[in-house]
């Protein structure tokens, strides 16, 4: 228990530094690369004087360190700013009594949607459940495809199972995700009318984007799993188990798969985390899926600095936490490992 606590404190402290560095990097890059959010916000026809006045108002003409200190000071209090572009509509209900004919009173409700600039946390919170659902379904489809293929390939090196897994992995990894997404939309949604795919109006809208994600992720799992199983099969404990007369099934399930899972966990933490985040962004954009990814791509195109910064902090935090959890889980699986 003491080890877990020390481990968590040490790794979380390192994580905070990493997240801060990433935030500073993103913050600076956004302000150095070309693209003025104020010009995009007000439209191309707006005069330069009006653009400058609004930029001053938003503090965008102060020095970068000055802007960063101001941002961090607010961020630590949970205020990540407001999107430059996304409006937040709160529904205000007002009751109005309308006197009808013959002295009869009729009560009507007048709904009025009042708009303000949406807070970054709200933008993220609105999109996150959708993104998590998509990522979860994507991972599920990935595992359903990759685990049987990867295990079969690992256990049957140089045989047809291995060649089939290699072939499928090669085809999948060669398919650009945006292209596959459009082809699936055209064939499955537009032509066959079997599954919906644009936007989100129900669970059915997750299936095609999740398949695209799975196709992107599966080759890595297939390859990683087959390699680690093949390596594990060469280990001394396998021949030892055979000599001791352990059933083959028991050797595979209890020893080979257990030992193969450590590199797989690391793969999940580092590669899959990164790929999943990147893949989700592109997939959400093409499918017009209302998650954090779509908002982020749009924010990048529009230079919506507060949203990009907020998402960068979130993404960095997720990756840091995922790595900490993977390392912790690895030490539970194999007590000899120290991180």
């Amino acid at each position: 228990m003491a080890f877990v606590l020390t481990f968590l404190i040490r790794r979380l402290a390192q994580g905070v530094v990493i997240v801060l560095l990433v935030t500073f990097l993103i913050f600076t890059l956004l302000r150095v690369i070309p693209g003025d959010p104020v010009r995009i916000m007000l439209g191309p026809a707006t005069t330069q004087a009006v653009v400058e006045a609004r930029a001053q108002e938003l503090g965008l003409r102060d020095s970068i360190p000055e802007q960063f200190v101001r941002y961090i000071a607010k961020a630590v209090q949970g205020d990540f700013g407001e999107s430059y572009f996304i409006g937040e509509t709160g529904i205000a209900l007002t009751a109005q009594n309308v006197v009808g004919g013959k002295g009869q009173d009729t009560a009507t409700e007048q709904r009025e949607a009042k708009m303000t600039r949406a807070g970054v946390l709200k933008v993220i919170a609105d999109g996150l459940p959708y993104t998590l659902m998509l990522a979860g379904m994507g991972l599920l489809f990935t595992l359903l495809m990759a685990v049987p293929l990867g295990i079969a390939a690992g256990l049957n090196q140089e045989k047809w199972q291995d060649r089939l897994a290699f072939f499928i992995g090669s085809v999948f990894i060669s398919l650009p995700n945006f292209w596959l997404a459009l082809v699936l939309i055209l064939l499955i949604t537009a032509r066959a009318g079997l599954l919906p795919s644009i936007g989100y109006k129900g669970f059915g809208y997750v299936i095609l984007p999740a398949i695209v994600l799975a196709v992107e992720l599966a080759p890595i799992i297939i390859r990683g799993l087959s390699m680690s199983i093949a390596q594990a099969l060469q280990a001394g404990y396998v021949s030892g188990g055979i000599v001791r007369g352990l059933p083959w099934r028991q050797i595979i399930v209890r020893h080979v798969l257990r030992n193969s899972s450590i590199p797989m966990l690391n793969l999940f933490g580092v590669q899959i985390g990164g790929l999943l985040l990147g893949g989700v962004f592109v997939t959400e954009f093409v499918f017009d899926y209302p998650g954090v990814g779509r908002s982020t791509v749009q924010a990048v195109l529009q230079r919506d600095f507060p949203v990009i910064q907020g998402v960068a902090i979130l993404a960095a935090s997720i990756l840091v936490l995922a790595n900490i959890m993977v390392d912790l889980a690895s030490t539970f699986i194999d007590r000899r490992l120290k991180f």
Partner: protein
Amino acid sequence: MTKTTRRNFLKGTAAAGTIAAFGGQAPFFKKALGQGKKSVVWGQTEPFTSSWDPSSHTILAQIYFDYDVFGQLIRTPMSQAQPDEIVYEMATSQNVVEDGWLEYTLRKDIKFHRGQPFTAHDVKATFEYASNPERPSGTWYPGQAEVQVVDDYTCRVRGEGGSYPGSLFWFLAGFLPILSKDDIETKAIDEFPNGSGSYKFISRDGPTTILNANPDYILGTPEIEEVVYQFVPDASTRLVSLISGELDIIERVEPEQYETLLEEDVTTSRTVSTENKYLHFRCYEPPFDDVRLRHAAAHAIDRDLILELMGPAGHPTVGQLSSAKFGYTDTIPNSPEYNPERCQELLAEAGYPGGDGLPPIEYLTSQGFYPKTKEYGEVITALLQEQGFPVEFTVMEVASWIERVFVRDETAPQLADTGWMTGSPEPNLVLRPMWHSDGLILTNCGSDTVDAAIEKQQTITDVDARRASIQNELMPALADHLPSFGLFTSVLIHAHHPAIEGIYFLPNGPVDKVKATLTS
């Protein structure tokens, strides 16, 4: 391994039959049309801003929304047959009166969506607010306006202190959403779009904005009961969404997509827009500070080649104005045409025979906003290089390009192409910001002759005399000075569900749905 038995086969066919019973779709498949209500879903290409105030932006997507929600004194349909047609909406007449005033008589039976009655005080508040040069929308108008309220339903407008004649609003009032005076004073317009147009704002939820038909709309209640603005940023996604029926109307269809759509069960539409595409010359330094070099470059460009490349998205132009604009003419005798020999003569006259000695020239364009900019940019680059112009071609993504294209110092590229889409036949919306010395937002090639010609037509209150001044004096002056070279007029390509009929696409992008119907 499951065997293919008769039982399995029957199970499979039963499943297929179930799918067929849902019209070939899964049960959770929701089409845009046909959900009970007469509703259409518009595939929006840009998001709205975070303010509903029409004077807070110059964003095209929100201009479309403003067109639906806010009433205007007049509407200007800008058809090719009659570009200067005026349809009266909140006003019943406009007349030039003494001292440069333009007098409006207003309708007495109009209410804003929130119920306030419309009066001349709202017109005064709107004109004076929206034309303020410190507002983003100020850029559309000729300067601070002044409005005199004669009575509740009569008012007069002109430039503040008589700085310009009210007749400049003759067409421009058709590009000025009328707001309630109270909303301007209390800033409530930021939070709620309280207009008096054909549709009322209902809600905005992320990328989805819903409008309902206004039963009290002065020009008649629209038959389409609900309009949904659905922001779908990717062009390919919009296209397949239309084919699959998840969107009902899409805009900015790209030329290749247009060809694809001709084979689908959708209706396509081409509208010659108010937007000309220009090649702008920057005149901070050689070579384009010399008018002969600007003409030489123009003579090097074969516009027919560009039009061929643009296909259905391009329409020929001669001068600086689109044919949807008041004052357009296709007869400008001194407008440069493709003529390589003349190009070489001018290069030699300017001291650069065959292009020898010319400094490197950067040509900047964007990718992802206008159709085919990169492709026709490559053609222009090749044509200029063929004549000896040492052109380097730079393509930038939209956000970076927007920042760089407006740079006005010596780091600006010597050549840049842009369009300029405006929502009124009023030519000053293009002429003043582009080529008058007070504007010059993209060229910096000012000229006293051009300034004088622009100012002269502004002071002419007679419509026909003003048209003649633009066609016979201003256009030739611009063709001589050539701060920018008109490449072609953009054609807006829309596609929509065949059940939608009677829809009118305006040449600046909005869609008039008031007379639209939905057939079964």
